[in-house]
């Protein structure tokens, strides 16, 4: 079983703080995605990273794909209460031309005012 391990599983911080969420695996992924999910809703795609070492920025969110394409991180600068939610990483193996997307167990982020 190819697993994606996320850490931490739960994070509670004050508004304005910075944070980093990690996604690790022993397997190589052809691509990796980050999603955000709110209660009662389905996950919503934030970003896809494909190239080892790739860094993508989405406003205050910075995503990085590890050089070996086995790990990824999500860094949030100056967190806001609206960032609260479940953050999920998910990856494809092999050529990526497969419908099977493997999800991590998620990181629950709570940003307090």
């Amino acid at each position: 079983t190819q697993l994606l391990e996320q850490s931490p599983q739960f994070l509670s911080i004050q508004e304005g703080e910075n944070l980093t969420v990690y996604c690790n695996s022993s397997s190589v992924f052809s691509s990796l995605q980050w999603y955000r999910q709110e209660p009662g809703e389905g996950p919503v795609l934030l970003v896809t990273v494909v190239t080892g070492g790739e860094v993508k920025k989405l406003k205050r969110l910075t995503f990085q794909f590890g050089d070996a394409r086995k790990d990824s991180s999500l860094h949030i600068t100056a967190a806001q209460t609206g960032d609260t939610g479940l953050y999920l990483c998910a990856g494809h193996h092999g050529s990526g031309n497969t419908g099977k997307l493997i999800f991590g167990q998620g990181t629950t982020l709570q940003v307090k005012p």
Partner: protein
Amino acid sequence: GAGVSQTPSNKVTEKGKYVELRCDPISGHTALYWYRQSLGQGPEFLIYFQGTGAADDSGLPNDRFFAVRPEGSVSTLKIQRTERGDSAVYLCASSLTQGQQRFFGQGTRLTVV
């Protein structure tokens, strides 16, 4: 439709009963995916369709689970002889073609009592 629609939003059933969960994908999307998400966990892949055919059903946990997509649009996930362990949120997603961005529905929360 504007988004992926899943019905019902909530389903409570007795152990041993049969249930059907419906997914209406975004119009024109050829790929459709079913996932199961337990509390505090990431989504777990069940099956994906490309058109009418199941391209990968390796995530179905056992033969009590079955899914169809007879006309390449609406899909139904069928669970026979439900067990308490089947309780979870069942998520459906669709994409224009396999490999493109997935859009998730809000899920069906299944509770087996």
